[in-house]
């Protein structure tokens, strides 16, 4: 079976995918296209169906209904080996073999992926493990194991990378190096599917994301699209001298049309929540304060606000 026209340009395509475990419907009728070269985030609470969907995309679990294509090849009933040659996978908890060295571990994966052994040492260097290449994995820290897991995922230059909670256990420097590597891979046109609980990490790095709730795809789009769709207010933080707080409150109340939905006092002054569309009106209302307004900071709703702020927003 070949990919149909709607899948052209899609690195991953899901049509009506469901997975049932006995009476539990873990994934419910998911339709999804992930474009080639896209960095795609998959978010959801524990038990939302993320892992099940991930495992189905990897071909580890057959769907109860629907079809999945990865790199244009059907995952179930197709050439599973061809799919797996096109992908790299980094699981959340990287479990490797303690008695092998880092280099031996990569040699093992390289043999299975039919990658020349000569690519192993550069792969280790890419994740900063060249000095530990000949040390047994049992001596590796959790972060080093995670980096070794990332190195094996990169072997063979995969077209699609599946990264499940990829920064777990990494120190800040390694996290930065990890995102730099992903940025390079993105420039090379590699498609990446990421799941992460550290939503702040994802929001500036994914092209689009999907929110799963109780197995259903509840939202899909870029972070900006989701912000707009959900209509969450942005936050304007004002730093004022103590005597000017009341004047600022009065200015906002007088300019009723500015649309501020909440005004609250803080240690530094005021915090104003307002719809994105009335941001300028709020600032205009504060204009009479002039230089008495010491500082203004405007914060868009974060992915955390979108995801955790109001769970009922994600139910249809």
């Amino acid at each position, binding site marked *: 079976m070949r990919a149909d026209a709607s899948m052209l340009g899609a690195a991953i395509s899901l049509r009506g995918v469901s997975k049932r475990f006995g009476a539990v419907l873990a994934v419910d009728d998911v339709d999804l296209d992930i474009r080639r070269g896209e960095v795609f985030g998959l978010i959801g609470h524990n038990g939302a169906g993320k892992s099940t969907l991930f*495992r189905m995309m*990897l*071909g*580890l*679990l*057959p769907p109860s209904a629907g079809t999945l294509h990865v790199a244009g090849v059907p995952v179930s009933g197709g050439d*599973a*080996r061809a799919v*797996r*040659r096109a*992908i790299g*996978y980094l*699981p959340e*908890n*990287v*479990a*490797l*073999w303690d*008695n*092998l060295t880092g280099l*031996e571990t990569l040699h*093992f*994966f390289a*043999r*299975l*992926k*039919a990658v020349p052994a000569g690519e192993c040492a550069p792969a280790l260097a890419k994740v900063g493990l060249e000095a530990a290449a000949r040390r047994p994995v049992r001596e590796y820290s959790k972060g080093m194991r995670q980096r070794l*897991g990332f190195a*094996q995922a990169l072997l063979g230059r995969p077209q699609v990378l*599946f990264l499940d909670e990829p920064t777990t256990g990494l120190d800040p420097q390694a996290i930065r190096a990890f995102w730099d590597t992903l940025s390079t891979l993105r420039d090379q046109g590699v498609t990446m599917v990421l799941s992460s609980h550290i939503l702040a990490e994802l929001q500036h790095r994914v092209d689009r994301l999907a929110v799963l709730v109780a197995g259903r795809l509840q939202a899909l789009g870029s972070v900006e699209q989701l912000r707009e769709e959900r209509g969450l207010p942005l936050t304007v933080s004002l730093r004022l001298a103590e005597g000017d707080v009341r004047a600022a409150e009065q200015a906002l109340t007088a300019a009723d049309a500015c649309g501020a939905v909440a005004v609250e006092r803080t240690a530094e002054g005021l915090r104003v929540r307002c719809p994105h569309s009335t941001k300028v009106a709020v600032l205009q209302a504060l204009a009479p304060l002039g230089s008495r307004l010491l500082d203004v900071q405007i914060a868009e709703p974060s992915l955390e606000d979108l995801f955790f702020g109001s769970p009922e927003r994600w139910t249809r």
Partner: protein
Amino acid sequence: MIEMRQISAVAAKEFRDRLRNRWVLAVALVFAVFSLVITYAGGAQQGAVGLRSLEFTIASLVSLVIYLVPLIALLLGFDAIVGERERGSLDLLLALPLTRTELLLGKYLGLAGALALAMLAGLALVGGVLVRNFGADALYHYGGFVLSAVLLGLAFLSLAVLMSVLARDRTRASGLAIVSWFFFVLVFDLLLLGALVGTGGRYGGEIFPYLLLLNPADVFRILNVFSLDEVRNIHGVAGIALQVLGDVRVLGAAMLAWIVAPLALANWRFKP
């Protein structure tokens, strides 16, 4: 389509892992020490210590192998698959261009290589002693004994891998391994004898020898009883089967079936 390259990659990793963690060395030492002790002290109950006849030595070693080899093989293989599943490395392996059958066969062959090497290294010392005392002819008989012992190990390893596929976690897999050791090594013959004596030999007398083929430990015992005249007189239960199961090819085929069948069943059950 099965790719041998993938199987050999997994087997080589598994074999290296067992060498590296000194499992092979430890098991070889256990075999060497026990087999030497039995070779020299096997006749202590009869009031004689020291090397006796070739037949007597092999008969003593048969008992050692029947207790020790199944236990070691079961311990080696019980977590082959369930261990990877519990650690979380199974998903990582199966997300590679590797089929479940290739993984299973690779695991089995790697472990089988480690088990065979440990047994051969451990039993080689006694082989040397026997050749020195009884000449090169001893090597023929002893070689047959060692080969059948290795086949016994491979049969129980195959059972262990099946348990590893069937069990939900390592605890259950280890429980299954222990229960099967008790069943095949201690209980099976008692059940058969009990049934035979309980019915006064009226029922099943004809099929009784063939029922011994349902236990790889008994197949091993018969194989070694069959090869040596003096030994035939020592073993009771296996002796009965000799008239019927006198063909070493039948016994060899039974042992091979005990290696292949559990593995085939494991492969059938090893599904997502």
